[in-house]
């Protein structure tokens, strides 16, 4: 078995048994990146020399019998996470020259485990997009078919894992940005409960929705990473003081008696027949494993996309006000006064989708429209969260498709923003309610992967991971590698 197709646990065992070194593993993956990056454009920066140094340090620790289960294992960080001394762009011209002065908590925690950063993943600009086409550095291409999008916003992270360029890539999910690319690239994407993973040093888009998480091949790999990544952070004012269970130890919980809620609204109009077929087949696997299926209805779920496209732009317009061309980021040449400096620096620094969202947010927060749009959307958010809570009175987890379709062609949905926004129709609800949710590979249509979405109660990460793991022990969809990347 080649190094790049090993699971995290297999890599950890191999490193500890000295079957291969972190330097060898890191070099092998950097070579794969060099080979495949020209087609995929999955990374914005590759940090080869510092990766080799970190790998040598990890080998030293391992040689002395030290380190933990992640020591010496390579990773890629989404370029939304600040990395000390390394360019952090958020895929925007605005931050093209920005070198982060500190590490995000997620970055610091995984560095402390001895993980080796290979580079920074491409993404939609400021995480605003569902196809990776809004990146200032050009779109990422789907490893299953280079004419198709990988999904977004964490499209680079998903492509990196699907192409086996790294066993793990960090990611963020505001409206589906981990789960949607996971589904479209055939990998496992995990978005924890809001507040479970620190947002410190994670460049803010919509602060009441943003949550960091993982893209890996399997749920077992996600459990290993999340155990190190999650936890209270005093530097994030919305970080939750809630003990982190041993997600790895909890993986093998039996499914007997598990009550699975089928979200009725997810199987109505818009869902491609092949997606439905694969999801239903996955549900049959769960039934065979002892779970019980119960149909549940969330009548207001259909309003989650409109509610999101008020709340998220409102928060984005406020968060992105900090980019003013004064303290960091892009600055326009020869400003005639301060107002001209602000306006042109922002006008030149932001791409069209980011500007569209800032303007939408500015509008819905402006006098006269605040109640009609912003307050109304917050009330609908409450309705949807209440409906999820009621559903969890009946069932343990909710399941349905992650996306309505498989990956689509580059450029096919860029003309109309609403067409693009509707890609996240099944994923946004979990963000509005702050619930943990994941996407796991559950089949193929015309050689393209599809995802099963699993949503859990607040802080039920352990249960979600064990539910996904049980399926992945019965099926091999998650182990399929795109042709040309074996």
């Amino acid at each position, binding site marked *: 078995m080649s190094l790049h197709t090993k699971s995290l646990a297999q890599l950890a065992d191999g490193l500890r048994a000295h079957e291969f070194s972190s330097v060898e593993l890191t070099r092998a993956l950097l070579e794969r990146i060099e080979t495949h990056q020209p087609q995929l454009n999955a990374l914005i920066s590759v940090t080869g020399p510092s990766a080799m140094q970190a790998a040598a340090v990890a080998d030293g620790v391992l040689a002395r019998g030290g380190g933990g289960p992640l020591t010496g294992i390579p990773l890629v960080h989404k370029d939304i996470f600040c990395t000390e001394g390394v360019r952090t762009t958020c895929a925007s011209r605005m931050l093209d*020259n920005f*070198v982060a*002065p500190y590490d995000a908590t997620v970055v610091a925690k995984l560095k402390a485990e001895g993980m080796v950063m290979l580079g920074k993943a491409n993404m939609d600009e400021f995480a605003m997009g569902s196809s990776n086409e809004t990146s200032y550095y050009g779109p990422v291409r789907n490893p299953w078919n280079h004419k198709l999008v990988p999904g977004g916003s964490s499209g680079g992270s998903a492509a990196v894992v699907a192409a086996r360029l790294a066993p793990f890539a960090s990611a963020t999910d505001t409206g589906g940005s981990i789960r949607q690319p996971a589904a479209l690239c055939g990998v496992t994407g995990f978005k924890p409960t*809001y*507040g479970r993973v620190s947002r410190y040093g994670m460049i803010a888009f919509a602060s*009441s*929705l943003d949550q960091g998480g993982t893209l890996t091949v399997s749920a077992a790999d996600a459990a290993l990473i999340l155990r190190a990544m999650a936890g209270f952070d*005093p530097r994030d*004012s*919305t970080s939750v003081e809630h003990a982190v269970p041993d997600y790895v130890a909890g993986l093998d919980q039996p499914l007997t008696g598990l009550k699975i809620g089928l979200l009725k609204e997810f199987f109505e109009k818009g869902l491609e027949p092949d997606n439905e077929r694969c999801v239903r087949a996955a549900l049959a696997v769960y039934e065979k494993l002892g779970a019980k299926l119960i149909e549940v209805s969330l009548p*207001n779920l259909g*309003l989650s996309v*409109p*509610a999101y*496209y*008020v709340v998220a732009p409102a928060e984005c*317009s406020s968060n992105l006000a900090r980019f003013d*061309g*004064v*303290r*960091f*980021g892009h*600055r326009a040449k020869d400003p005639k*006064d301060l*107002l*001209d*400096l*602000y*306006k*042109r620096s*922002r*006008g*030149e620094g932001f791409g069209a989708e980011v*500007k*569209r969202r*800032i*303007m*939408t*947010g*500015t*509008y819905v927060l*402006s006098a006269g429209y605040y109640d009609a*749009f912003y307050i*109304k*959307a*917050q*009330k*609908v*958010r*409450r*309705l949807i*969260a209440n409906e999820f809570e009621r559903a969890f009175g009946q069932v343990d987890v909710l399941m349905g498709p992650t996306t309505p379709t498989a990956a689509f062609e580059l450029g096919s949905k860029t003309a*109309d*923003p*609403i067409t693009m*926004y509707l890609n996240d129709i099944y994923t946004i609800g979990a*963000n*509005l*309610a*702050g619930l943990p949710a994941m996407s796991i590979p559950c089949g193929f249509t015309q050689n393209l992967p599809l995802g099963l979405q699993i949503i859990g109660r607040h802080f039920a990460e352990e249960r979600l991971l064990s539910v996904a793991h049980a399926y992945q022990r019965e099926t091999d969809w998650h182990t399929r590698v795109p042709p040309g990347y074996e």
Partner: protein
Amino acid sequence: MKPEQIAAIAHLARLSMDEAELPRYQESLARILSFVGDLEQAQTQDVSPMSHPLPGLVQRLRADAVTETDAHELYQANAPQVAASLYLVPKVIE
């Protein structure tokens, strides 16, 4: 939405926008606002607005103690224009 309204929003958002760009945003903002207009259908009497996804969570305060060290040189390394440890902007007082 009229072009003047788009220009006014762009001004409030501090985004430069030339005449040629206005129709593009005019069209897409109109699409977005009509789409989110569906929210009107929802019955929200007696529903309180939800600004945070976790119930019962309050903003934490930290102890009033100095925790930051002086790192202005590090931070200002990212600034477009600095002189004598000060961020430079165009003159604002005549």
